[in-house]
């Protein structure tokens, strides 16, 4: 006990010391809160806000009260400058208690409109019951509509039952009727509701007030009163939005008596009512599910589509029928519903749509990717293996979209099918689903097939492989040094980026036939490192290289320079310069110029600048130059400026001149 008393005394002393400090701090802030230099007030405002925040922390009740008293007293003191008073009352909105009410009440009765409204707002949020009394007194005296609206609203926010009679007086005045109706709705006593009820249909705000009252009555368990109000609001002569709200309200207040209202809403010709009814019925599961299905055929198309979106798997048969309906929105809703809840029975319906070129094809493709009810996956796999070609294609695409890796054996068989469309779809699916373990089996098929679809598939799988060296070895073994087989795997070898693959592509580029050489050159140009530069340059420099091969080789080097951002800048520049020297055609030189623009190196700037004077390349050189200058300006400012000046002097275009100007300003 002694220890407790000691703690209490120490605690009180601490609070009292903190309270004295806070009071001093407030007094010290007043001149700064009203600083003639308005912009200087902000720091003082934040200091006071922090003080209010600290004092209102949980467990600081005494300190909060002490500060509340100080702020209220200072705010009510006419000697305190106006900007300081306003900011103090703003703090009281969030931390003032009973101690602040007398001062706030005096401000509410004062002459200054801004302070009056500030005080009203602070009283509205004040937890002390006596705050309501001061607001009521002010409302009795208030003459201006603006002020009355504020006071009525505040009393409503406080759900102050004692003010209901006072507020009712403001219902028949145009300026205050809406505020009064809403406030009475928030007060939600029987008397408040009784005052509003006769105005339903005459004062638009009365309906909203009654809706608010019904909702509050329902929340506090006064179900009979809430039901009565909802029934009034449900009356056919009321606006549709209000009727819809009443229907929603009944969902919570009286679900047991909801059925006839739902039926009426579904049978109405109002989309809003039908929408709310379908939401409620759909959310109730089996309870109203039969009602929805029974009325389905009689509903307009948008409502049918909504019903389909809330049905569960037990209605799959009905949903399947709906995919044939004439209205596009309904069909699409049915297709989506099958994707959501369908099983094996829904798959053929979706495949028929996905396998045709109709307007619902995309929706069906999406639904097939998602359908996951009982037996759906097996049904799709079965359809991929046999049946009409268009349905098999749709099923193969679905397997790919679904990431159904278990179907890979089916795909490996399908790539050998005679039908070209089936084959193509199977390759595409293999490309999406195949993994490292399939590299050999798919590689073997690619070596036999050699089509572009097969090459694309093995390339896609190669991109996902972890052990790239091993995969490259396997593919090279499958190709067995044969030109056509090697060419069909060129893209995959490039993606794998293994040394053995580079050597094989080098040989293919140097000695293969025209088609194989081109595939090898393209693959080298997409190599992941600069290691492919030398084989490409070797082709580019060969006097007997066909024009097409020369061009592909130079473009390949340009692509490597551009894409090898992590390689040393010197190596990239060196490769570009070598390509520029080897290029025999202007298109190749232009490609290299564009690549140089991505290499922030002094040599790049020198070369580009030197080509600005060449009529054949000045336009491309200027474009490359401005891009390089923008890249260089943060690291090599002088160089960037020199390049920009040269571009400006070249006078290629206004736009480039502007960009050069922007570089020069940095």
């Amino acid at each position, binding site marked *: 006990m002694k220890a407790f008393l000691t703690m209490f005394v120490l605690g009180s002393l601490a609070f009292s010391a903190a309270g004295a400090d806070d009071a001093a701090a407030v007094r010290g802030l007043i001149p700064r809160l009203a600083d003639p230099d308005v*912009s200087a007030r902000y720091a003082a405002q934040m200091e006071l806000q922090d003080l209010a925040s600290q004092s209102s922390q949980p467990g600081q009740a005494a300190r909060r009260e002490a500060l509340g008293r100080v702020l209220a007293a200072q705010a009510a003191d006419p000697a305190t400058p106006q900007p300081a008073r306003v900011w103090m009352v703003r703090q009281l909105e969030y931390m003032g208690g009973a101690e602040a009410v007398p001062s706030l009440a005096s401000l509410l009765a004062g002459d200054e409109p801004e302070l009056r409204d500030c005080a009203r707002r602070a009283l509205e949020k004040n937890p002390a019951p006596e705050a309501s009394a001061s607001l009521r007194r002010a409302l009795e005296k208030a003459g201006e509509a603006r002020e009355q609206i504020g006071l009525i609203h505040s009393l409503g926010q406080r759900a102050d039952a004692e003010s209901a009679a006072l507020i009712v007086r403001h219902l028949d005045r145009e300026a205050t009727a809406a505020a009064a109706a809403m406030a009475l709705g928030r007060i939600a006593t029987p008397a408040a509701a009784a005052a509003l009820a006769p105005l339903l249909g005459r004062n638009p705000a009365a309906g909203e007030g009654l809706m608010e009252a019904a909702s509050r009555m329902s929340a506090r368990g006064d179900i009979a009163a809430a039901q009565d109000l909802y029934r009034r609001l449900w009356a056919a002569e009321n606006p549709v939005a209000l009727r819809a709200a009443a229907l929603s309200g009944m969902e919570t207040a009286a679900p047991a008596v909801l059925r006839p209202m739902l039926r009426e809403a579904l049978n109405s010709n109002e989309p809003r009512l039908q929408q709310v009814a379908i939401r409620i019925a759909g959310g109730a599961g089996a309870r109203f599910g039969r009602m929805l299905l029974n009325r389905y055929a009689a509903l307009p198309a948008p409502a049918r589509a*909504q019903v389909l979106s809330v049905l569960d798997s037990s209605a799959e048969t009905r949903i399947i029928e709906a995919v044939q309906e004439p209205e596009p929105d309904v069909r699409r809703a049915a297709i989506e519903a099958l994707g959501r809840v369908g099983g094996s029975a829904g798959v053929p319906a979706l495949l028929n749509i996905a396998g045709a070129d109709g307007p619902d094809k995309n929706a069906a493709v999406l639904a097939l990717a998602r359908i996951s009810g009982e037996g759906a996956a097996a049904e799709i796999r079965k359809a991929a293996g046999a049946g009409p070609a268009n349905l098999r294609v749709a099923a193969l695409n679905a397997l790919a979209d679904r990431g159904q890796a278990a179907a890979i054996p089916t795909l490996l068989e399908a790539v050998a099918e005679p039908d070209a469309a089936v084959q193509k779809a199977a390759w595409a699916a293999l490309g999406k689903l195949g993994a490292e373990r399939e590299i050999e089996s798919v590689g073997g098929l690619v070596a036999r097939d050699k089509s572009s679809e097969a090459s694309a598939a093995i390339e896609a799988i190669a991109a996902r492989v972890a052990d790239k060296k091993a995969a490259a070895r396997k593919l090279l073994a499958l190709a067995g040094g044969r030109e056509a087989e090697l060419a069909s795997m060129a893209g995959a070898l490039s993606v794998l980026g293994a040394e053995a693959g580079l050597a094989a592509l080098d040989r293919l580029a140097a000695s293969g036939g025209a088609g194989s050489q081109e595939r090898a050159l393209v693959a080298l140009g997409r190599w992941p490192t600069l290691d492919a530069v030398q084989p490409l340059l070797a082709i580019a420099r060969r006097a007997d290289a066909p024009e097409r091969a020369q061009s592909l080789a130079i473009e390949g080097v340009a692509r490597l320079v551009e894409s090898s951002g992590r390689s040393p800048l010197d190596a990239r520049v060196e490769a570009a310069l070598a390509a520029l020297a080897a290029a025999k055609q202007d298109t190749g030189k232009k490609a290299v110029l564009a690549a140089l623009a991505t290499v922030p190196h002094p040599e790049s700037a020198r070369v580009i600048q030197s080509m600005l004077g060449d009529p054949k390349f000045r336009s491309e050189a200027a474009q490359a130059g401005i891009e390089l200058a923008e890249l260089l300006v943060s690291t090599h400012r002088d160089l960037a400026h020199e390049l920009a000046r040269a571009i400006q002097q070249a006078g290629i275009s206004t736009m480039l001149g502007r960009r050069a100007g922007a570089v020069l300003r940095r």
Partner: protein
Amino acid sequence: MKTTRRSFLKRTLGAGAALAMPGFAPGALWGQNAPSNRITIGLIGMGLQMGGHRGGMTGRQDVQVLAVCDVHRGRLQAAKAAVESAYSQRTASGSYKGCAAYHEYERVMERGDIDAVMICTPDHWHAPISVAAMRSGKDVFVQKPMTLTIREGRIMSDVARQRGAILQVGSQQRSERAFRRACEMVRNGWIGKVKTIYASLGEFPPPRTLPEQPIPEGFDYDRWLGPTPWYPYHPDRVKGDYGGGWRCFWDYGSRKNGDWGAHHFDIIQWALGQDDSGPVEFIPKGYEGAEFQTHVYGDGVRVLRNHPDMKGHMIRFIGEKGEVLVSRGDRLDTVPAGLKDQPPGPADVRLYESRNHDDNWIQSIRSRRPPICPAEIGHRTATICHLSGIAERLKRPLRWDPAQEQIVGDPEASRWLDRPRRAPYVYI
């Protein structure tokens, strides 16, 4: 959409005025979309953000902009002229005069021939106008963040649900492929259990106290301030500016938490499957040495704001088995890298797919089916923005009960769940 006789008549009568104009040919204007099939809309808040929406809406054959609304007379007239000019280009006579211009949003609500409104005002007007629109039977597109306060969000969500209103919040990242794919990967556990998420929001300059300047001719400053506290006019206070302007001030929003947080926190909610719930704790930067503003979900997932190691992305999900990194411009990266190319399996959760946020709203109005970012989702995301802001202002952590939507154990902080409104702009 089923057209009732009443709405058809309303629209036909509404179109009557336009039909009387010389050279006006509705067929030429809206192609096959007869008046009864067109969605008629009003645009409210004709500033910076509305520009793109206005162009998109006037370019549609299935939508007709009937009204524009702004508190700035010059901007209002310019918007009316822009709408009419867009439609004039589609008439044989080259002339069209059918777009009303209103200074007060209440006049738009009175128009029974307007089906829906787009709201691109500053944040403090979002809720009052949205609620008024839904109560008058209209559908709503409202910019993000959906609200200024948490209580406003609860009201908006309830009103939308009760009235069957289609409300789309302008968190358009939900309609971008990369963000949806990122969320699907996280949701389906492809990177294992997510532990930490980084979100890059940036920073605004601090708010300021500004000296009074004369209110420009034709600008209704009192109405611009609306329910927020009165301050002397200064152009920097009301400026629409992505780098500052009104967005810097607490009175009109939650600063960067409300601005970019409304985008990135929204995506994080989606990825974590928390669209109807939210975090349980909010820790401001600096509290007991906290290096980053943080919010924490019930299962321990921590979201850190402005962590420097974003690897060039806007949001970085870090899981036990990998990472998902995502940004605007359809940028998606994963660790391991191949993850992003892997198709979802049949058992994987597939999220709502929308490819165009505005179009998704229009299609939802037509079908009466939910849009991709309805009010409840917008409210839950805005709640995170606001609670982060409240914790920042109070400089203390907050515990949050997302089921009851209450701050736990801090009655004074709880007062921030709503803000008192300046008279006479008190309606919500």
